[in-house]
């Protein structure tokens, strides 16, 4: 899917850039974006390390397992392939909580940790699992109790009631989340999106132990 979308983006950009006489800007944008991507990734190292460090303490003390057991009844129907008590349940819960509170600095590292925990259940490395796609849909949507960035923009522009948008933002976010997850669950069984070289879904055994060097 991304193969086609990515190709379409690049082709469209060059063709349009040529027509609009903006081909030099397109070239410059490509070079700048490549450098910018590295800046973003390097900037992530610090917060990544911070949150992965704290999460490791939570894992070693058994806190993650407690959390995943506690939340399993809620997340079980969203992620039927993830065994209760698996570390992925804990890290997904923390990511979702951080998103709800609008703590994006914490949400991304915790989300990436959750992806790595989900990867430990993946039987076809390089191919997304159903749980990953559902989790991704939760993260590409945004349900925030307080949309702090937007309230800030409204306040800065001199709004008389900058918090008026809390309700509308939340309603749209929740609707998008519900539909997105439903769509993800419907599509996962279509042949078009099937996992190639699929084997009968064997239930993974006891909660997988830590795998710091998960396959890339």
């Amino acid at each position, binding site marked *: 899917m*991304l193969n086609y*979308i990515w190709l379409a983006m*690049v082709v*469209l950009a*060059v063709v*349009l*850039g040529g027509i609009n006489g903006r081909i030099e800007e397109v070239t410059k*944008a*490509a070079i700048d*974006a*490549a450098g910018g*991507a*590295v800046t*973003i*990734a390097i900037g992530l*190292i610090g*917060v990544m*390390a911070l949150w*992965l*460090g*704290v999460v*490791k*303490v*939570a*894992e*070693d003390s058994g*806190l993650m397992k407690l959390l995943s057991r506690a939340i399993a009844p809620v997340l079980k129907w969203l992620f039927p392939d993830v065994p209760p008590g698996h570390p992925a349940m804990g890290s997904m819960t923390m990511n979702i*909580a951080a998103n709800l*509170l609008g703590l994006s600095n914490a949400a991304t590292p915790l989300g*990436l940790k959750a992806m*790595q925990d*989900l*990867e430990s259940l*993946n039987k076809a490395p390089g*191919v*997304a699992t159903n749980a*990953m*796609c559902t989790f*991704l*849909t939760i*993260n*590409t*949507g945004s349900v925030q109790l*307080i*949309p*702090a*960035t937007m309230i800030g*923009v*409204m306040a800065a*522009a001199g709004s008389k009631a900058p918090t*008026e*948008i809390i*309700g509308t*933002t939340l309603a*749209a976010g929740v609707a*998008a989340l519900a*539909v997105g997850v439903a769509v993800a669950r419907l*599509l*996962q069984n279509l042949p078009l*999106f099937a996992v190639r070289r699929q084997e009968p879904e064997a239930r993974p055994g006891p909660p997988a132990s830590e795998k710091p060097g998960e396959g890339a």
Partner: protein
Amino acid sequence: MASRLIDVVSTWAVPLFLVAVPVYGAIKKVKVYESFVEGAKGGVQTAVRIIPYLVAMLVAVGMLRAAGAIDLMASALDPLLSRIRFPSEILPLAIMRPLSGSGSLGIVTELVSTYGPDSFIGRLAASAYGSTETTFYVLAVYFGAVGVRKTRHAVVAGLTADVVSLLVAFLVCRLAFM
């Protein structure tokens, strides 16, 4: 009142978490410093691993923006969405939102200052921005962190959610602010 409470919670969540986890660990006889450092090592690897995915995505998005594709796509969608009286001012934001976080933040800020923060357009723009994430960025980073290249139905599900959030933001804003 409720928003004040949530405000307090989001202010205190991180510091409380950062102190509660090590304290609990210490009670459970975990060597907290060693354990923290062990976990933190993963930060560098993860950040480095997402670089190729991020470069691919951000380069494509950057080229599209520079070529003027956002406005083109917006005007292509306009006749379709004007049937439900969707304001065409919002369309560039709608196209930009899943592609670029900083790009769409720029558009919202401009819309809010042009039309006024308490205008219908301003509020719709803010609601639409806040109710979704930068889908392609999230896809690149999250899947990049685990080396997933076959993303299956994630793109379709994510973009469907984006469209729904935009349309519901429009409907709810009409009910609330018109």
